[in-house]
């Protein structure tokens, strides 16, 4: 059940209780202004007043004066037989007072003293001692002090009846005017600490800060209703605190509403803050005597501010046009109406009395509850904003994740494309390489041989030799261009392995050493091919022209160079001008192409071909 629903239910219940048969409602009583400590005698000085009575002018009465209210009531035999104890119910008696039955003291609500000011917000239920009641007519007297100001100058409609019937009425009012404010104080102060903490951590969330401030002010204001007894010397400061909290709450609400609809007018905000300061300051200057004036005028000035808040809230709804956006303005509207209601009730504006005569006598102030409702609405709004922010964050994260995933896919795709391109590129480079090798080596050899054969210039042995050279060239290209792992030791090993058989068949004893560091010796295929070609040329020369008995091939590292040494013990066949001059020229050209050098030593005891290539040039 909502708060408003409960308030309505209570109001209905109160109304129905008014008509309960066994409860005597006193809506008129005899009144006599007299300071007598015991009920004064009846006489013409007594006059009839309608209840509730007040506010009675405090100036017209002596400071220590009192007012006596008197009424007769029937206590029937049935009531006596029911043996249920009777009680006097006073919905309020702000300044305390005494109850007398048939001229005897029956009970009291403690009054203030010069040192302690009381202001009872709670209702009072005073049991009547059974021995004081007589079957038939009885007389009730209530003595109320007039010395205190404000609320104390009100006298309620009194109810009498069986205690158990009045108890519920008392408890209900007790809940709404006392327990509820107590809860409100605790909840407001806790909520404000919590929300202000959020604002402290996130200064940009000004709405949270304002809400926290509003909750704190409201908690403080409500506290002044919860504490019912205040030392007299602190009374003024207590009232100043009350005014400051009430005015502050309204001003903060106004700023909150403005910010909510996006209005930022510093001068308006400053003016509001200044107005807030005026009330408490006036009271501080004027003292307790000025409270009525300050309350009436300064608090009255808050009503237009409340209406402005209401308008702003309406605007906010119009701007957002959503059901949830209507929540806060509705609550504000309720609060403003409740505030106006309370204001009228506090100052007994006749309009309210004539509009709701039964209700206004109850003196139930509504702003407490409306403000609670308002704070709830604000909390709901901020919570919704918070949840929305979380959702937005999650959405953002998801979008971000999706974008990252998307980007990753793109990257992977482009890597793949690049890989394919690289492969294609590598394949085409390799194809070009092979084509060039075939063109330069095998191709030219075949064409030359073909022309010579057609001319009849080659005998079968020469043809065979030319063809063998072609096959050797092809094998060389295969050795160099298709290794699984580009370790030159394996490439050269394959080459020498093949030559071994060939040399042995020609009765040349081969031997070779490969003396390079154990880590793989990587040489780019085109460079490997050139090196092998030089080696092949050298070995072919050994085979064809040297007449050697043995040949030695050495591969080694020396001083940043890769050295390939081919040494035979033949006749010293390399002569620049000889038939093999072209082969010699080719070897030198290739060595130069590699960025290396070729050394040739040849004499009657043998030939040495030494190729030196810088290691840095080996990887192409």
């Amino acid at each position, binding site marked *: 059940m909502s708060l408003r629903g409960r308030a309505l239910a209570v109001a209905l219940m109160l109304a129905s209780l008014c008509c309960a048969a066994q409860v005597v409602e006193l809506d008129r009583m005899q009144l006599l202004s007299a300071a007598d400590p015991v009920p004064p005698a009846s006489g013409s000085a007594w006059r009839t007043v309608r209840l509730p009575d007040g506010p009675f002018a405090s100036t017209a009465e002596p400071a220590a004066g009192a007012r006596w209210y008197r009424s007769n009531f029937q206590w029937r035999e049935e009531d006596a037989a029911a043996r249920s104890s009777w009680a006097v119910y006073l919905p309020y008696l702000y300044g305390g007072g005494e109850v007398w039955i048939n001229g005897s003291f029956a009970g009291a609500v403690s009054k203030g003293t010069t040192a302690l000011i009381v202001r009872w917000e709670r209702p009072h239920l005073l049991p009547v001692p059974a021995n004081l009641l007589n079957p038939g007519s009885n007389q009730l007297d209530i003595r109320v002090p007039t010395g205190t100001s404000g609320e104390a100058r009100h006298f309620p409609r009194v109810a009498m009846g069986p205690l158990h019937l009045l108890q519920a009425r008392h408890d209900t009012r007790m809940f709404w005017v006392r327990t509820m404010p107590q809860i409100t104080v605790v909840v407001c102060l806790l909520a404000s600490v919590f929300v202000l903490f959020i604002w402290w951590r996130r200064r940009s969330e000004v709405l949270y800060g304002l809400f926290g401030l509003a909750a704190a002010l409201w908690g403080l204001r409500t506290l002044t209703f919860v504490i019912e007894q205040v030392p007299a010397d602190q009374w003024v400061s207590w009232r100043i605190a009350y005014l400051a909290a009430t005015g502050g709450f309204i001003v903060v609400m106004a700023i909150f509403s403005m910010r909510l609809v996006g209005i930022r007018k510093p001068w308006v905000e400053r003016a509001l803050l200044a107005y807030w300061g005026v009330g408490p300051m006036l009271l501080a200057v004027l003292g307790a005597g000025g409270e009525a004036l300050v309350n009436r005028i300064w608090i009255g000035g808050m009503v237009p501010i409340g209406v402005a808040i209401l308008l702003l809230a309406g605007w906010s709804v119009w701007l957002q046009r959503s059901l949830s956006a209507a929540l806060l303005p509705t609550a504000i509207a309720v609060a403003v109406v409740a505030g106006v209601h309370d204001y009228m009730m506090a100052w007994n504006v006749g309009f309210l009395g004539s509009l709701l005569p039964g209700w206004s006598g109850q003196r139930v102030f509504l702003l407490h509850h409306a403000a609670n409702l308002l704070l709830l609405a604000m909390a709901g709004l901020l919570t919704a904003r918070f949840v929305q922010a979380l959702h937005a964050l999650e959405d953002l994260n998801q979008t971000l994740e999706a974008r990252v995933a998307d980007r990753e896919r793109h990257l992977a795709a482009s890597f793949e494309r690049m890989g394919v391109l690289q492969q294609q590129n590598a394949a085409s480079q390799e194809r070009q390489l092979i084509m060039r090798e075939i063109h330069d080596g095998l191709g030219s050899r075949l064409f030359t041989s073909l022309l010579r054969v057609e001319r009849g210039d080659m005998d079968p042995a020469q043809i065979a030799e030319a063809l063998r050279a072609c096959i050797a060239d092809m094998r060389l290209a295969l050795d160099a261009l*298709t*290794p*699984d792992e580009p*370790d030159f*030791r*394996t490439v050269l*090993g394959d080459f020498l392995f*093949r030559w*071994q058989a060939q040399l042995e*068949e020609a009765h040349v004893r081969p031997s070779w050493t490969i003396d390079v560091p154990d880590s793989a010796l990587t040489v780019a295929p085109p460079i490997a091919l050139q090196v092998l070609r030089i080696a092949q040329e050298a070995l072919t020369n050994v085979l064809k022209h040297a007449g050697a008995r043995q040949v030695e091939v050495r591969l080694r590292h020396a001083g940043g160079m890769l050295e390939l040494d081919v040494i035979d013990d033949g006749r010293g066949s390399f002569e620049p001008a000889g038939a093999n001059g072209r082969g010699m020229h080719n070897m030198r050209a290739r060595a130069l192409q590699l960025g290396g050098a070729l050394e040739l030593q040849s004499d009657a005891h043998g030939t040495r071909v030494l190729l030196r290539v810088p290691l840095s040039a080996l990887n192409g």
Partner: protein
Amino acid sequence: MHTRVLIVEDEPEFLRRFSNAVLSDPDLSLVAAVSNGLAGKAMLDVQRPDVLLVDLGLPDINGVEVIRHAAARHPGCDVLVVTMFGDDEHVVASIEAGATGYLLKDASAERITSSIHELRAGGAPISPSIARRVLARFRLAAKPSPGPPDPGDGSAASPLTPRETELLRLTAKGLTFETIGELLEISPHTVVAHVKKIYRKLAVHSRSEAVYEASQLGLL
């Protein structure tokens, strides 16, 4: 004692050349010289050659199939594969089928007969890149180490002895058999004998691997 040689070669020139080489050696005898794979297989069913000389590029079936047939029917038969370039891809495939040596297509008659004799004497040559490839085949096969032990050789790990592995490693580095023999303190003859054993192990290994893979695929 005669070494009986069967030749399977589709090109007539080479068939003649190989046949002549075999016929010219008094220690060798020619069982048959056929020009296609099916004929070769049929011949293997009726004859028992000591050496099979087979070309890989046959017109009807792959030479590898003929090698497999020979290895299955006559475990004692040495298979010498004829290749154009001695490239490791073809040679290793042949070894896995059961070949223990290879011969370049342009080899001289002397080289042909000496290769046959070398093979019969228990030796097999190996080039550095083939050594590297064989090493890789064993490593690759040893890595997954499948759950059930292989029915063929009974060991999931590399079936090579440390010495054999070392031998392959040194060969792959381009060292000669003489040098390897010195390093491992064995004769060059023993080196080539080891190589032949390695070839046999690779054949057994790849066969059992094929069996394993087939059973994994539900083919057996």
